[in-house]
Structures are given as structure tokens and as C-alpha cells.
């Protein structure tokens, strides 16, 4: 075409200029983005988007272009969690919306298409846009209509985009967010794999897990108390079969966004350390060796890490109840050969007895208040408390015991036959075979570190309850006497 010749010359000249300027200082400002534009028309291309967790391919061209983006807003009902459905408002039919990828200096021609079935008007605010509303006013679109506006990508970085139609909080809370990456002039450092993740919350009328179609609960949203905190738009979206997959030895990059609408994320990969972090999704890899990085609501972060060992590495928001109780949990499944030098796994498992095998008997504290014989009702009341605190765990609440393990105290012939023997069992413990109510038991009852008053109380209680009919109580003196008497040799 005749008209393209001078255009090609201009582009070639621009390319030469850009190549020369490729070693520009890292402090190159946004203004350079416009200065680098060739005069004359930019080449036009239509953007290919990618849906989470996939990332669009890295940009290979070294010059600005005019990029045409078509994004559709659509309201659809689909799965939020097992048995739970939600009416999401989406970009591109998914939560998060697709990831967009352009290059600094590009002119973006943005078409926002609102599906005719939408109940609501929608628009878009891209944080990569320098201009009022980030494009919101220019893209306000009724259902069944389309709006167009253009902007220049002045700054590199990883930016959130979201709907900004009133009520804004509700539009965001229903799922209208995604990420747009503006690559720097020289592109990002190449890595083996890139992933796209967005954390966000959902505020449903029903509690977490309540089945059925859940409507949005605006009161919970106002109180910043979500029922669901998830990666990529639903519980389990990045788990199991949907886990991110990589191989040992690969360097992996995650583009992590936070759609909010309210919570800040403490993003952490269990068992991995971020070798490089582009804090808050800026254009500088400004931090190294980070365990957990903050992702602001309406913000992002880029993390790079090299995978050294195989296994399943869990992605979490380390505000940990969100991970385990609300759904903020994902998986990175890494395949490859083990490396015991880096991580050995469990090497040994042994019994641990720091003071040896004997049951420890703690001395009764000196200076304890001197004990006295209690009247009957006080004695039995205390005995009930002692029983509940010390005995019920094994002998059960009604003294019925556990067949084959712990003998019953209820209507127990063994207990009632010999009062002193019963006191001795509580004070010294009992091991070896016994027969209780015709059943054999052969276990160990530890000696219990109770005061003499407590022993008297609990035995009085047990011997007058659970079907046992003692006519006499166990007194303090009884216990002191038994304690003082050495146990009979067997």
C-alpha cells in the first residue's frame, strides 16, 4: 500500500531511536512513554486476553502499538462454593475478569460492552489509566450498549481494574475486578511460568457454606465481615485438579491482585520464599527473600520464586482464619525429583520421655492451708467437683466406665468391697489385672495428685452415688492413715 511506506520509514526510525534508548536509566519517567511514540499512526492490534490462572503471553514487540480491547460485562449465576450459587457481576463472564497485558506507551482503545441481559449499567476504572475516574465516566454503559474511550499507558506496573458504577462497593463485591499488566519498555525478566491470581471476598446473606442461591448482604459488606475469602472467584478454584502446576527447577512468577472490596491480603506460599517481590505491583523488583507480602485492597503484588523441591505448596492469606475457614487457600503442585539436602522430610520418629518411665508425683505444696473434716453436704459437693475434674474423663460421667478399658465405678463390687483398698488406689494408683462386676480389666490407673481432703471427698461421693450405697463417708483421717501405711506386698 502506498500510504504505508512513509509510515514504515517512520516506524523504522522510531525503532532505531528506541533501540538506542533501550539502555535508558531505570529512573525513566512516565513522560518518556509519550516521548517514545513515533509520529504517525501506531500499528493496530487486538488484545488477546487470558482467564485466571493463565496469563497472556509476554509482549515481544519493542515499540508502542494501538491496542484494541473489547471487554464485556455480564451478570451470571454460578458456583461460589459446593452447593452455593451466587449472581456474579463479571467482566468477561468470569471472576476475576480476564488479565490484560499491554506495553508502556501503548495507546489503548477500550470498548466496554454491557450485555443486553444485564440489569445494571456498568463501567470500568482501570488503575493503569491516568485520567478522571480511570475511565469510569467515559465508559458508563447501559445494558445492551457499548462505550469506547482511549488512554495512553503511561506507567508500567500491575494494575487493578474494576467497575465503578454506584453503588461502587456492591459492583466490586459482586466480582467486577481483574488485572492489567503494563510491561516496561524492556519487558519483565523472563521466567519459566507465570500465573494470575486474584484474592477477593464475598458477602452472602447465608453463613459460609449455607446452600442455595445466596444474595449479597450489604450489611456484612459495610461491617467488613465476609463469609467467603477466595482466590480466583470461588472456593477451591485453585485447589486439587485446578491447582497451579509447575516443575522443580522452574522460576515461577505470580501476578497477585486483590479485588477486595475490603480486606488487605497477607499473601504467603507455604514452604516457599519469594526470591523477588515487586511490592504493590510497581515496576521495581525492590525486595528479596520475602515470606509474606501485603497486597492492598484494590492493589497488587508480583512475586518471583525458584522451585527447588517437589510437593504441594499451599497459597494462603496468612490472616489464617480466612485461609482455613473462609476459602483463601490455593495450591501449587510441583513435580520433579526430591532434593534431601534442601528438604529431607521426616527422618526419624522415637518415643520421648524426658524424665524416664515413672509416673511423676509432684510434691504437695508446703504451706497449703491445713485441711479439716468437712460436713457431709460440703464433702459430697466437693467430691462431685473433684470427680468431674479428675475421674470422669476415664470413668465417665455416670461412673459407667469404658468396657475393656476403664472399669466402672457404678454399682462396683471391687470399689465397695474394701474402703482402704479404694483409698490406696486413688492415692497410689493401680496396675495389673482386676475383676470388676465380673469383667476382667488389666490397665494402669495413675496415682492422682490430690490433697487428702480431695481424696476423701471424691471417694465419699463415688461410694454414695452411681448406685453405690455406702453408709459411711471416707474421712480425712482415713486417707491420712492409708497414706501413712506402706502398701501391702503382693
Amino acid at each position, binding site marked *: 500500500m502506498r500510504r504505508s511506506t512513509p509510515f514504515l520509514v517512520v516506524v523504522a526510525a522510531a525503532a532505531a531511536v528506541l533501540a538506542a534508548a533501550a539502555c535508558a536509566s531505570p529512573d525513566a519517567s512516565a513522560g518518556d512513554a509519550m516521548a517514545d511514540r513515533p509520529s504517525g499512526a501506531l500499528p493496530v492490534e487486538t488484545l488477546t486476553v487470558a482467564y485466571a490462572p493463565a496469563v497472556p503471553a509476554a509482549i515481544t514487540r519493542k515499540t508502542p502499538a494501538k491496542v484494541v480491547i473489547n471487554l464485556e460485562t455480564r451478570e451470571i449465576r454460578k458456583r461460589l462454593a459446593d452447593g452455593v450459587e451466587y449472581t456474579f457481576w463479571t467482566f468477561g463472564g468470569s471472576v476475576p475478569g480476564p488479565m490484560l497485558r499491554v506495553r508502556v506507551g501503548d495507546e489503548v482503545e477500550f470498548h466496554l460492552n454491557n450485555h443486553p441481559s444485564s440489569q*445494571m449499567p456498568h463501567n470500568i476504572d482501570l488503575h493503569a489509566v491516568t485520567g478522571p475516574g480511570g475511565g469510569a465516566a*467515559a465508559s*458508563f454503559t*447501559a445494558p*445492551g450498549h457499548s462505550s469506547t474511550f482511549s488512554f495512553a499507558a503511561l506507567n508500567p506496573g500491575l494494575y487493578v481494574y474494576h467497575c465503578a458504577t454506584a453503588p461502587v462497593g456492591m459492583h466490586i463485591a459482586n466480582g467486577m475486578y481483574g488485572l492489567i499488566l503494563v510491561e516496561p519498555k524492556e519487558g519483565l525478566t523472563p521466567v519459566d511460568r507465570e500465573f494470575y491470581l486474584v484474592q477477593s471476598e464475598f458477602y452472602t446473606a447465608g453463613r459460609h457454606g449455607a446452600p442455595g442461591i445466596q444474595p449479597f448482604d450489604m450489611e456484612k459488606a459495610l461491617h467488613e465481615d465476609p463469609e467467603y475469602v477466595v482466590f480466583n472467584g470461588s472456593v477451591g478454584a485453585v485447589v486439587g485438579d485446578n491447582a497451579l502446576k509447575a516443575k522443580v527447577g522452574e522460576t515461577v512468577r505470580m501476578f497477585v491482585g486483590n479485588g477486595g472490596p475490603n480486606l488487605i491480603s497477607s499473601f504467603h506460599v507455604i514452604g516457599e520464599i519469594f526470591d523477588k517481590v515487586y511490592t504493590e505491583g510497581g515496576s521495581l523488583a525492590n525486595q528479596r527473600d520475602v515470606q509474606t507480602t501485603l497486597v492492598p485492597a484494590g492493589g497488587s503484588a508480583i512475586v518471583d520464586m525458584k522451585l527447588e523441591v517437589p510437593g504441594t505448596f499451599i497459597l494462603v492469606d496468612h490472616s489464617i482464619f480466612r485461609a482455613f475457614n473462609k476459602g483463601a487457600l490455593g495450591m501449587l503442585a510441583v513435580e520433579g525429583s526430591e532434593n534431601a539436602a534442601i528438604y529431607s522430610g521426616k527422618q526419624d520418629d522415637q518415643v520421648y520421655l524426658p524424665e524416664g518411665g515413672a509416673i511423676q508425683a509432684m510434691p504437695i505444696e508446703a504451706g497449703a492451708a491445713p485441711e479439716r473434716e468437712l460436713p457431709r453436704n460440703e464433702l459430697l459437693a466437693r467430691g462431685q467437683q473433684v470427680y468431674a475434674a479428675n475421674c470422669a474423663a476415664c470413668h465417665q460421667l455416670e461412673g459407667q466406665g469404658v468396657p475393656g478399658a476403664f472399669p466402672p465405678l457404678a454399682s462396683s463390687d471391687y470399689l465397695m468391697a474394701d474402703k482402704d483398698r479404694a483409698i490406696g488406689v486413688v492415692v497410689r494408683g493401680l496396675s495389673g489385672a482386676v475383676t470388676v462386676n465380673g469383667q476382667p480389666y488389666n490397665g494402669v490407673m495413675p496415682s492422682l495428685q490430690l490433697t487428702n481432703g480431695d481424696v476423701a471427698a471424691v471417694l465419699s461421693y463415688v461410694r454414695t452415688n452411681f448406685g453405690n450405697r455406702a453408709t459411711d463417708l471416707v474421712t480425712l483421717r482415713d486417707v491420712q492413715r492409708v497414706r501413712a501405711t506402706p502398701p501391702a506386698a503382693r
Partner: protein
Amino acid sequence: MTRRVVFAILLCGGAVRAAAQPAPAPRFRSVAPGQVRPMFIAGVPDGGLAVAGFLLAERPVSNAEYLRFVTANPEWQRSRVARIAADVSYLRHWAGDTRLGPEVVPAAPVVNVSWFAARAYADWVGGRLPTTQEWELAASRFRTSISGDPDRVNAQLLALSQAGARDTTPLAAFRIVSDEGVTGLFGGPSEWVDDFNTVVTSGESRGDSGPDDGLFCAGGAALAADPSNYSAFMRYALRGSLRGSYALATLGVRVARDAPATRSRGPR
């Protein structure tokens, strides 16, 4: 050429009409006078705006009723209507100019009608469109008919308005009945109001100066009469996005009329 002549004659108020059925008479319900606190209250007295009592149709206009309208008024048929009065989506769900087709439920609320068309219909049946505040007044009369808890009414209305205006079956629209017997205000398509274009919005809900200040992101909650009334937010946002020629699949029409004591003669 012939079409232009015919259109010109009709436009000049020609009384020549195709032999037509008489206009259907909507059944009206009486909406009692009351106070309405418009969504954005800058400049409105504390108690709100006084709205006079009026009559509101019990049901929105149905496909069948609208079919009678376009049969009697061919200038409003899909293939003939001026684009300035109704855009390309006008009646797109019908099978033809005067055919609903098997997909369309005759008793379901008609959608894909523009504001100009809605006004023409209302005029044809001897009524008018309700104003925004009249519609909101009628829509506030749900204290007793929605189950139990008055504090949860806003949340319930929000849930209803999300229930899907896409479902234009008669059951969906008419199941929800206001205290005054008006059905389908929630759970069905949104409805045109006469003064939809008085919603002051630039589409940038977070602007912070000038006429936008009622609608900026924080102001949208702080200055709104009832920030918990999210279904009202949604209706105001939709109205703000509209133009008179727009025909939406989620927007229908309902007829109103002045209350008997104040009824004026002729169209507004």
C-alpha cells in the same frame, strides 16, 4: 417515498388510524400521598419531598397489551419506528412487527421499549408515566407485605431486585405485591419513569465537586438518604445510564394517572 408521505401525515396529527381495537383500560391502584426521601438529598427539606397521591397500574404493561398498541398505531411498529424514538433493540424479542412469536409470553411484562414508546403507550390508554418520586413512593409501601422484620425490608428488597429481571414470566413479576396491591415493582423488569433524566450523574460515581457531589463514591453513601437502600442505588444508577431512545431487555413500562380530584384532561 410512500412511507415518508404516510409518516408525515401521521406526524402532523392525522386522525386516520387503522381500524383498531379500543385501548385496554389498565386496572389502577391508589397510592396514598406521602413523603419520599430521594436518593440524593442535597437541597431537599429534612422530611423529604411531599408526593401527592396518584393512581398506579396494578401491573406493568404486558406483551399482549403492547401488541394491541402497535397494531392500532403502526408508526410504533418495529420496522417503522423512527430511530430517534427507539433504537435498534426496540421489541427485538418479538418475532415480527405484530407477531409475538412462540418464545414470548403474552402476559409477561413487555420490555425493549424506549421512553418515547412508553410515553406514547401511556398516552394511548389515557394515562402517563409515573415520576421517579411517585414510583419510589409506591415502592416504599412494603412494610407489611414482606415477611416480618421491618429492619430487613431493605435487604429483602435488594434480594428481590437481584432475583432476576431476566425472568419475565408472569409468575416472577406478579408474585411480589405491595401493601397497596401493586404487583411486580420488584422481581420483574425495571420500569421507565417520566423524569428519568433528572438523575444527576456523569457516570463517574466518585466525582467530588459540582453537580456530581451527590454521587461520589463516599458521598454516594454519606449523602444518600438511606445508604442501606442498595436496591434504590441500583435503580438510580440504571436511570442515570439511560437515554430516551434506549430499549433494554430489563426495562419495561407501567402506566400511572393523576388521582381523580386532580386529573387533568389530555396528555401531559
